[in-house]
């Protein structure tokens, strides 16, 4: 068995997540008390009845935070615990510690909060009207849209809304903190961003970063939800440990997690699109009202990705896109796989759909005509290279036999009154790199031990995306040794410093490249040693399958011996590698630059079956043609494609994140918030991988795979719309995600929601 294979432990139930770690005897458990309105002023917190529940009970409030009561970095707007005012329903306002989790929760519930209600806002457009923005809005302008609209034969405008999405990582948020010698804080966090945690804890504890040590072992899922959003829980656990001088574990129950943590940003957007007689799109305008929630968090970076994916996979010569970060009294919306891009794709596809309707053209004709082509300039000034939009689009049409499929669907629809089918295509072009430039860097530390085994540490967090397996593959290939000799270690701020979050699909690209650099360093030293032993030039040496090869011929010298020899000869068998993605730049003033290392392409086709009587639909089939470069591990990539796709389908058809007008989360349990289960998924799913091409900016010409396939889910929305139109041609379209049964029924009935 490959030692690199984590999943063996998962399957045997041996893998330990935060809540499974052994607890020291004196460990205290933490619970939080959440606010119970969208905005309120705290008059006082009476702790007496909570403290009366047991001698171990400790209650901590904002005043107990020793350092700066602040974990917001882009903008200082996120306290560890609010001093006077809370800003969303579900915000932690006090921390309670006790000997058992149950007691801590009970004591938290026993706190008596004296507070008064303050006016609150939940609607992003209302916030915009009041000018309440997180940061100034951003605009990208290219060509001359107004003039181009005048030249258009067809111009349509409309509105598109997309709801938020709860991550539902199966492991909820949690952290463990312990005060160690010399006042050092040791924290284990379920996070994608150990350095972010280190910084937040250091700041709120008033400690230098070198006194805070953070480890992330492995995560039971994250999907963006444990990037910035993990910092609060780690900071609270650290606070508890510092004050109580005992280890503290804070692990959220599902309901608390749902109420207190951020989710995918809901967007409400206006669009205008125009085309000439033949259907060439000439201009596009959009204004995005991003519901950012109460604090900044990652909203600006997410908005940037929206603005940089405004035209989806299509070339549009003139346009203007404006994005607003609207402050509302809701949890701070945050990163979620796709990171602002799915919202942008949806708006553009909605605009394209409206245009197709107006022109009475099949959607796919309009789509095909306007796809990005090789060398097209993107509207933000980056020439599009290695474009595979048309290739993947055509290939998926071939794969499904599009014309035949359409004819079959037409037949079906004429012969069935109570069932209708619809199909739609969705092309993707997704930029890879953090939109925040300084984040495109990574480090790795590699040790080769005397017995030849190898330990790799990077900033890449293992959260199910199997990045450790990919990095293992990279190291094995470069060193020329079997995968089994390599262990990829968890991430710790002790081994790799100043890491960026494992996010934006870049985990294996950045960390893999850093690991590669470190490997090459060590390999160089070992080759020199081998050359000395075998009396040849270092260039003549390679290592393959753990054996030293000289001029193409395998020698008797084995990896292990070579390592032993090198050690004896006092050669350093450790190396640190560093990588910064080359060629990236972006000018925020002109809104032009090369923000991405490369793009990932692909196209999906989805067929849905509508049950007209019962007003619900079933995903019948899905076909995906995807460009995953030269895959480092096909099964891992397939798992990423299928997993992201499922989340995309959930977002468009099922996952109904709902807040009341008063800001209370209504879908506050897994019984009211439904995500895809096995039978929700299409009865048939075909994934076809495009043959790889050169991609020098990723390890071994691979390509990032985490986020792009999520967008494919949007095809389901339009497929369902097609089926509905077959059932009720005069039905009024409202572009509104998720397309839950209630909206299906409303469409059929012609009822406003």
């Amino acid at each position, binding site marked *: 068995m490959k030692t690199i294979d984590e999943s*063996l432990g998962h399957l*045997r*139930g041996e893998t330990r997540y935060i809540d499974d770690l052994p607890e020291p005897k004196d460990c205290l458990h933490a619970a939080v008390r959440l606010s119970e309105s969208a905005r309120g002023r705290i008059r006082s917190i009476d702790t007496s009845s909570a403290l009366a529940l047991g001698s171990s009970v400790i209650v901590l409030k904002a005043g107990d935070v020793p350092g700066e009561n602040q974990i917001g970095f882009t903008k200082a707007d996120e306290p560890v615990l609010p001093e006077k005012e809370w800003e969303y329903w579900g915000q932690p306002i006090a921390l309670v510690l006790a000997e058992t989790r149950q007691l801590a*929760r009970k004591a938290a519930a026993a706190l008596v909060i004296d507070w008064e209600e303050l006016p609150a806002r939940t609607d992003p457009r209302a916030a915009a009207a009041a000018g309440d923005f997180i940061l100034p809005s951003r605009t990208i302008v290219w060509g001359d849209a107004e003039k181009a609209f005048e030249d258009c034969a067809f111009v349509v405008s409309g509105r598109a809304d997309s709801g938020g999405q709860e991550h539902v990582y199966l492991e909820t948020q949690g952290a463990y903190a312990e005060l160690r010698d010399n006042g050092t804080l040791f924290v284990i966090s379920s996070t994608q961003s150990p350095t972010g945690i280190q910084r937040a804890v250091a700041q709120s504890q008033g400690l230098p970063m070198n006194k805070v040590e953070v480890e992330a072992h492995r995560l039971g899922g994250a999907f963006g939800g444990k990037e910035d959003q993990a910092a609060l829980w780690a900071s609270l656990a650290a606070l508890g440990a510092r004050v109580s001088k005992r280890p503290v574990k804070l692990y959220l129950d599902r309901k608390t997690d749902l109420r207190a943590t951020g989710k995918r940003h809901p967007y409400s957007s206006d669009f205008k699109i125009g085309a000439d007689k033949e259907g060439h799109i000439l201009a596009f305008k959009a204004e995005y009202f991003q519901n950012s929630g109460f604090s900044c968090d990652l909203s600006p970076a997410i908005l940037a990705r929206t603005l940089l994916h405004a035209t989806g996979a299509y070339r549009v010569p003139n346009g203007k896109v404006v994005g607003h970060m609207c402050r509302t009294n809701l949890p701070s919306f945050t990163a979620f796989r796709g990171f602002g891009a799915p919202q942008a794709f949806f708006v553009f596809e909605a605009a394209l759909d409206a245009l197709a309707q107006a022109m009475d053209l099949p959607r796919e004709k309009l789509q095909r005509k306007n796809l990005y082509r090789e060398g097209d300039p993107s509207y933000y000034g980056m020439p599009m290279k290695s474009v595979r939009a048309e290739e993947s689009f055509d290939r998926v049409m071939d794969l499904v036999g599009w014309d035949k499929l359409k004819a079959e669907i037409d037949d079906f629809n004429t012969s069935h009154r109570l069932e209708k089918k619809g199909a739609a295509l969705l092309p993707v072009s997704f930029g890879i790199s953090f939109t925040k430039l300084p984040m495109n860097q990574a480090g790795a530390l590699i040790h080769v031990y005397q017995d030849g085994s190898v330990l790799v540490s990077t900033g890449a967090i293992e959260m199910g995306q199997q990045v450790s397996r990919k990095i293992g593959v990279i190291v094995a290939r470069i060193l020329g040794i079997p995968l089994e000799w390599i262990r990829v270690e968890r991430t710790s701020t002790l081994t790799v410093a100043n890491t960026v979050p494992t996010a934006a699909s870049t985990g294996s690209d950045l960390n893999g490249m850093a690991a590669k650099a470190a490997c090459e360093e060590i390999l160089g030293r070992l080759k020199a040693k081998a050359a000395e032993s075998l009396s040849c030039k270092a260039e003549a040496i390679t290592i393959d399958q753990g054996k030293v090869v000289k001029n193409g011929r395998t020698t008797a010298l084995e990896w292990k011996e070579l390592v032993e020899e090198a050690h004896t000869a006092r050669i350093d068998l450790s190396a640190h590698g560093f990588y910064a993605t080359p060629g990236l730049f972006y000018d925020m003033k002109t809104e032009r630059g090369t923000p991405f290392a490369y793009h990932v392409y692909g196209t999906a086709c989805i067929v849905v079956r509508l049950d007209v009587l*019962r007003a619900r639909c079933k995903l019948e089939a899905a076909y995906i043609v995807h460009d995953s470069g030269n895959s480092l591990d096909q099964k891992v990539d397939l*798992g990423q494609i299928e997993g992201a796709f499922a989340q995309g389908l959930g977002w468009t058809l099922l996952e109904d994140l709902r807040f009341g007008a008063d800001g209370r989360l209504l879908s506050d349990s897994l019984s009211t918030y439904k995500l895809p289960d096995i039978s929700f998924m299409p009865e048939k799913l075909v994934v076809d991988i495009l043959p790889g091409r050169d991609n020098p900016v990723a390890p071994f010409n691979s390509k990032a795979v985490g986020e792009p396939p999520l967008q494919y889910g949007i095809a389901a929305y339009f497929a369902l719309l097609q089926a509905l139109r077959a059932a009720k041609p005069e039905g009024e379209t409202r572009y509104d995600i998720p397309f839950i049964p209630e909206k299906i029924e409303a469409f059929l009935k012609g009822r406003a929601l």
Partner: protein
Amino acid sequence: MKVLVNNAWVSPKSSNGMPALDFIRLELGLKGTKEGCREGDCGACAVLLGELVPASSGSWAQIDERDRRRNSDATVVDKGRGELVPRYRAVPSCLLALGDLAGKHLITIEGLASVPGGLSPVMKAFLEENASQCGFCSPGFIISLSAWLAESDNLDMAGALKAVDGNLCRCTGYGAIRRAAERLVKEFADLPHDRMTRLQRLVERAVLPASVLSYLDYAGTQFKEEKKPAHESLTATKAILGGGTDFYVRNPEPEEGFSPLLLSTVGAYSGITRVDAEGRSWLRLGAGLRITDFFASQAVRENVPGIEKFETQFASTLVRNLATLGGNIVNASPVADMTAMLLGLGAWVELRSLSETERGFRRQSLDSFFIGYKQTALKSDEFVAAILLPASNEGSDFSGSGAYDGEQGGVSLSGHFEGGIGFGARGGKLFFSFEKAAKRDKLDIAAVNTAMSFRMDDAFARSVRISAGGVAEIPLLLSKAAMAMEGSQIKGAKPKDLAKLCQTVKNLAEEEVRPIDDVRGSAAYRRSMIGRLVQAHFLRFFAREGIAEELEP
């Protein structure tokens, strides 16, 4: 109390009302069983529960025969148990009372990993297909699929998918899990039907640990010795728990020492988990009957042809294995699915007093049992002992006569009850349909639900019943809509006439309901859906008559 946990017997320190999940993770320190939601919705906490149980009650005639034997010797409560069969089912440990483990075999993922080689074929299939990403859901899936191999009559893909309908995975998108299941379908196509031999085979093939066999030996001798299960006396002060699937959702972390009365352990009323027959008049379903067993009951299926089709509309395999029929009713949720079905079938309930266990009971129609939002006719010292289904007596010489002349509902009777009252015709073919609207097809609470039944007596619809859930503060019977159909000609009717009838019934149904807005749907949506689902009933009943061409959705 003792429980065999994986390979060793354990006497729990915690009280019998503690959720098994906490017992497993906190008291036993077995951390492979995960907490993902604590409300039965994710399956991360699934465990296998093994026991030896009386063979399912069988057909009506067999039950009748058995009951006659038993009744001739009223003092022997548990005689006539007949054959015992093993059962290894997957249940969500977050909703399972520790007390429900008494004398049973609990297998956690650690138990499955204790097979020779340390890697069961189910795990191996997952490994080979890369079906575990973050891994948090994996133990639950492995448990569910292992239970499927042990329990299911459908060792095909449909069976495998049903087995994991209560397990969520957020990472894989289920593709790899499906492929792993496909492997298992191939690999285990040859499993024998007989449960005992099958379990032996599964132990040999390292799907289950060897302790399964020693447990079955042990449990067998326990039964042979005819030991009466230690049963608790019923005291009015205690909270009653059926399966706990509703209770623990509302009380995820009960107070330390919480010790409810578990229906499954009430020996004196062993009928409480059984299907009994009262002559040819009633099918008496013990209130503690698990939903899985309800749908598996041959007598139920005989009585309501086709009812098993609707099983998977209720919750998930995991929850069905735990939830009881009585709990669904007492819950008094306006959207309870079993309640909707039973209402639509004209069921009655039998209420017994806790304080006078052996005496006094009363029966009333189920529709009169609900008196307000989450309020029932249960008095504080009463519990629901049974649900009574009127027997379907097609072609029999059944003559339902009125030994009973009270009004329907709310009437106390004492100790003696004759069936066959006020139900109109019981002869003729029974038509039954159930429909549910929810966001997700599987494991979702209904926005609205409805059941409909009628009997075709000669050519006419008789005893028409239409229930509707999620459209009022209580589960409703739509009497106006049903009346409109009562006596209508069905056989030989033209599709157009059937469609017209459907339209009338639909319109009345929409008028009769009084829904409100909430997170599961707006009032307008619910009202409209009731109409649509009534149409769906008609479509199901009269598809062959060509009604599809005439329905106006």
